[in-house]
């Protein structure tokens, strides 16, 4: 089965609201990465966490290695936040970064 289970697969938000994305891991991961795929198709690095939480503007991410999950919170959503968000387990000794299936976020006016 998938090592990285991401939810929800799709999310619709009105401008100014917020929500959370979640990734569950089937095994213990050393760290987590979050990306956003923009309209041009580029994967933009949002966060890399080995533990705890990080915040950047309206985005905040948390990672609990022991409980095997990570979250990405978006507050005060803006139209430009629309895109597909991916979480990933960075490569370990197997040199295989593993991605979730993505969350497609649409922010409406």
């Amino acid at each position: 089965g998938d090592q990285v289970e991401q939810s929800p697969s799709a999310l619709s938000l009105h401008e100014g609201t917020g929500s959370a994305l979640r990734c569950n891991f089937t095994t213990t991961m050393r760290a987590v990465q979050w990306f956003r795929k923009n309209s041009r198709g580029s994967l933009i690095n949002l966060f890399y966490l080995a533990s705890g939480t990080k915040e950047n503007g309206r985005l905040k991410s948390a990672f609990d290695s022991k409980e095997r999950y990570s979250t990405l919170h978006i507050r005060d959503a803006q139209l430009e936040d629309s895109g597909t968000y991916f979480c990933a387990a960075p490569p370990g000794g197997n040199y295989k970064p593993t991605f979730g299936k993505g969350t497609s976020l649409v922010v409406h006016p």
Partner: protein
Amino acid sequence: ETAVFQTPNYHVTQVGNEVSFNCKQTLGHDTMYWYKQDSKKLLKIMFSYNNKQLIVNETVPRRFSPQSSDKAHLNLRIKSVEPEDSAVYLCASSSQGTEVFFGKGTRLTVV
């Protein structure tokens, strides 16, 4: 500027042709990857190279072959493209198994 650079951005070709995509990273990383993003937008790893050595070779058709001249370069050749090869191909790099950085991708269309 330090980053992962891919060329070309787009490529349209006919079935049976050979194509080659280039990737270079200036981040000083020791590991590079090729991913394929399919029509469902899923990211599937194809190859991983660590210090010029092939480490991961997922189940991909034999017409795909990676080529690494040094740890900063990892090219991808497709010998005889098929329609199902139409996708976005993403190159990435990392250091010591930590944070991964991606290039902007190459969109291949096979007609």
